[in-house]
């Protein structure tokens, strides 16, 4: 039984059982009804050595094919600086629990404070929490905030141009929470403002959710949206890609009350979908509706600056039967990831990331159109993601690309393909991707 994760020797166990006053380890479970005591062996693999486990995962990994990524749709292949994994692996960060004892958790508390500061800079909204699970759940919780703020109103509008993965989760949360979710139809790839106004006029609306860039990669013009939403005493919620906020109008500049989304775009590996990190920011007026953990600055008894979990007298701590959120653990370590990323990149680096992505995406767009097999799906401004219509068979195309090591052009509607280009893609990769079209 001497396994390396258990320090107990036979003699230790004897000595401990004696102190407790029982004969055997089984005696520690004497109160469990005999019919439910597990006496068999688990149908699990036998214990493997480190060498065997390494081999196992290497072999398992060979069943995957890493591809050159030209797809986003909610997860983007951005550059990840090498210092970040090194720093977040420090066990003082990695193996700590939630910072409930602030005197020995200033490391965690301080980076969360820095994370909140940076996300508030990007969104332009004063208050940000310690992080959410991912973009879709952050958006669902933003919806809860709107409903909680509106007291009796239980209807929320969501634009059809919001990413379908986000939409699915928001729809699920709304259903169980008793919220009526209505979709605002799209027009030319953008939220139909007139339709939104019509739905707002019908009344009972607590909030309106839109996205920037939207599910087609389009940068929508939200001029007049916040005014229309606020006129009905509802909240304007913007799901925004934070990486783009270095260059695009911030949620606050659009008049949004809440910003939410996935911060995976801030240099995080794709990791087959997770861990990523959601963010949730809001105006000062809404801070007491903001779920999850929030860190504030304060002083200790000696007057030293320090950080602490604050505004905890909410949600599941008090009035837990009436809670609007149940989030506890979030994605703290990934918030640290984002904080280090933004420290390294700064506003200049983030601007360059967007410039490179913009250039690459627009080059690919033009090259695709130049083949004569593609036409624009919309004629709207975009940054790193865009949709085009093709006359070719999407399946055949995708198969061709896959055989040659590319993941590109997912089909989002009949004959409409979505592409994404980040700063990681080179001109050679783009040229190769386009050249392959001729072989189809």
């Amino acid at each position, binding site marked *: 039984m001497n396994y390396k994760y258990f320090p107990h020797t036979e003699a230790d166990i004897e000595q401990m059982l004696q102190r407790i006053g029982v004969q055997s380890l089984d005696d520690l479970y004497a109160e469990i009804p005999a019919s439910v005591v597990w006496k068999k062996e688990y149908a699990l693999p036998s214990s493997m050595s480190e060498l065997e486990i390494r081999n196992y*995962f290497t072999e398992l990994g060979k069943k995957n094919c890493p591809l050159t990524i030209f797809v986003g749709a909610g997860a983007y292949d951005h550059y990840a600086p090498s210092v970040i994994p090194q720093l977040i692996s420090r066990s003082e960060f990695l193996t700590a629990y939630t910072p409930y004892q602030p005197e020995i958790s200033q490391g965690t508390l301080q980076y969360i404070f820095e994370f909140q500061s940076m996300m508030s800079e990007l969104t332009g909204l004063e208050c940000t929490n310690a992080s959410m699970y*991912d973009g879709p759940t952050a958006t669902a919780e933003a919806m809860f905030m709107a409903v909680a703020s509106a007291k009796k109103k239980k209807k929320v509008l969501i634009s059809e141009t919001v990413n379908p993965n986000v939409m699915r989760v928001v729809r699920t949360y709304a259903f169980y929470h008793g919220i009526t979710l209505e979709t605002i139809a799209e027009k030319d790839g953008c939220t139909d403002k007139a339709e939104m106004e019509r739905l707002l006029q019908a009344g009972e609306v607590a909030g309106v959710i839109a996205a920037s860039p939207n599910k087609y990669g389009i940068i929508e013009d939200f001029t007049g949206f916040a005014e229309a939403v606020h006129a009905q005493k509802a909240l304007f919620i913007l799901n925004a890609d934070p990486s783009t906020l270095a260059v695009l109008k911030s949620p606050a500049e659009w008049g949004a009350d809440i910003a939410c989304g996935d911060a995976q775009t801030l240099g995080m590996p794709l990791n087959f979908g997770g*861990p990523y990190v959601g963010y949730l920011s809001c105006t000062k007026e809404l801070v007491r509706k903001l779920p999850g953990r929030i860190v504030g600055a304060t002083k200790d008894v000696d007057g030293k600056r320090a950080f602490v979990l604050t505004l905890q007298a909410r949600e599941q701590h008090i009035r837990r039967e009436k809670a609007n959120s149940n989030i506890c653990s979030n994605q703290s370590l990934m918030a640290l990831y984002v904080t280090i990323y933004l420290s390294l990149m700064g506003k200049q680096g983030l601007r360059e990331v967007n410039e490179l992505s913009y250039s690459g995406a627009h080059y690919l767009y033009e090259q695709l159109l130049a083949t004569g097999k593609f036409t624009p799906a919309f004629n709207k401004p975009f940054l790193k993601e865009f949709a085009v219509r093709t006359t070719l068979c999407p399946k055949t195309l995708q198969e061709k690309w896959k055989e040659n090591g590319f993941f590109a052009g997912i089909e989002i509607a009949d004959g409409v393909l979505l592409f994404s280009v980040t700063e990681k893609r080179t001109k050679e990769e783009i040229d190769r991707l386009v050249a392959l079209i001729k072989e189809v």
Partner: protein
Amino acid sequence: MKYYDKLIFELSKEGRRGYTLPENRLKQYSMEELPASLKREKELMLPEVSEFDVVRHYTNVSNKNFGVDTGFYPLGSCTMKYNPKLNEEMAALPAFTSLHPLQPEDTVQGALELYYRFAHALAEVSGLAEFTLNPFAGAHGELTGLMVMRQYHIQRGDLKRTKVIVPNSAHGTNPASAAVCGLEIVEVKSKENGRIDVEDLKPLLDDTIAGIMMTNPNTLGLFETEILEIAQLVHACGGLLYYDGANLNPLLGKCRPGDMGFDIMHINVHKTFSTPHGGGGPGSGPVGVAPALVDYLPNPHVKKRADGVFYVENGDKASGSVSGFLGNFGVMVRGYTYILSLGKENIKMVGPLATLNANYIKESLKEEYYLPIEDICKHEFVFDGLADKSTGVTTLDIAKRLLDYGYHAPTIYFPLLFHQSIMIEPTETESIETLDEFIHVMKVVAQEAKDDPESVRTAPHTTPVRRLDETTAAKHPILSYRDLLKEV
């Protein structure tokens, strides 16, 4: 070591940079083309620092933290066991980290296989039919599990069932999850011996009950000995049993929730299956269900064809979707590494050794600390403050004093059944020497409370910062560097 007190913003100097990017060879396409109305106008205040500034800053910041690797962390209900390093190495393999979640199935067979195998390993140790690994954390698992519970009743047309029973000893997230899921909470009392009062439960059971949420062993670390009767009663009234897996650790090798009659459960992979807590996530909260509920698990599902090929499926009976993709995949790699490391031979020792450690501490300290319920505990137990109530030293003081001695504090003031709860969970990865030293320090603190209560009441004395002004922090929130600048 020098005390480090800078924020990254305070290192910033205009013109410094911490990155390199390739030169833009496609400059003819420039963001300048974008309409001005879509562009950001407000200045963006991010730090301008060199790479080494960043490395040294976060290294210094980390030194103000305490992790499991730093020292003993007897935080009740959190299962702060050793986080094996091999788990981290496997989770960092590029063959997994570079995969886009929407890649064609035939290019991610290894990742899908891992998801599938880990889910099945969890089902085996839980005695349930199938698991989804999509939920991101324990509380998220609770919410997901309750969605499954509601969906089961809804699809049977049994729409009256809108109440869920929660014991008064439950984790705080249980009622919060139920409320978020649109369920009404009905509380059931505990008996003198800390277990659910079955007589109090009986009159609550009618056709409006969707189910009951239980933790077993409960938050006092006590096994619910009447579980079979409870299961029978709840099922007889048409309700389902939800198992809060936060306390699963002591049952490994001894007992399976499914065999006790539970229909739905979540597992905290970051507790029982050794993945790091990361200062509050990323965790993973897989949800498992009995055979009749499999179709209601949230989308997407990972399935295996008869020919051994794995695929992703979205079922139309599912309770919805709770995640953008397939959950915290990186955490699953770590959890599965742990299962393969221990194997069936060692995993069955986790529960007994965790239980042994907990009882050893309990028996060693019950003279100095008040033990409200004398019984064999499982992985954790609860003291109600010091045995000597005359000193005026509170549980908070004891917790803070432990920090001076190099320990993380136990969980305090939870469960709410007692006024001065001190909840201790040592886990199976601690040695008798570590436990003996901790026991010794706990006794020293109890003695200090008598001889020099002031030193305990004003603790900690040796930590990077001392007790904080939490009242001002809440009354006058300073939540960002910009807020902080306004203070000066």
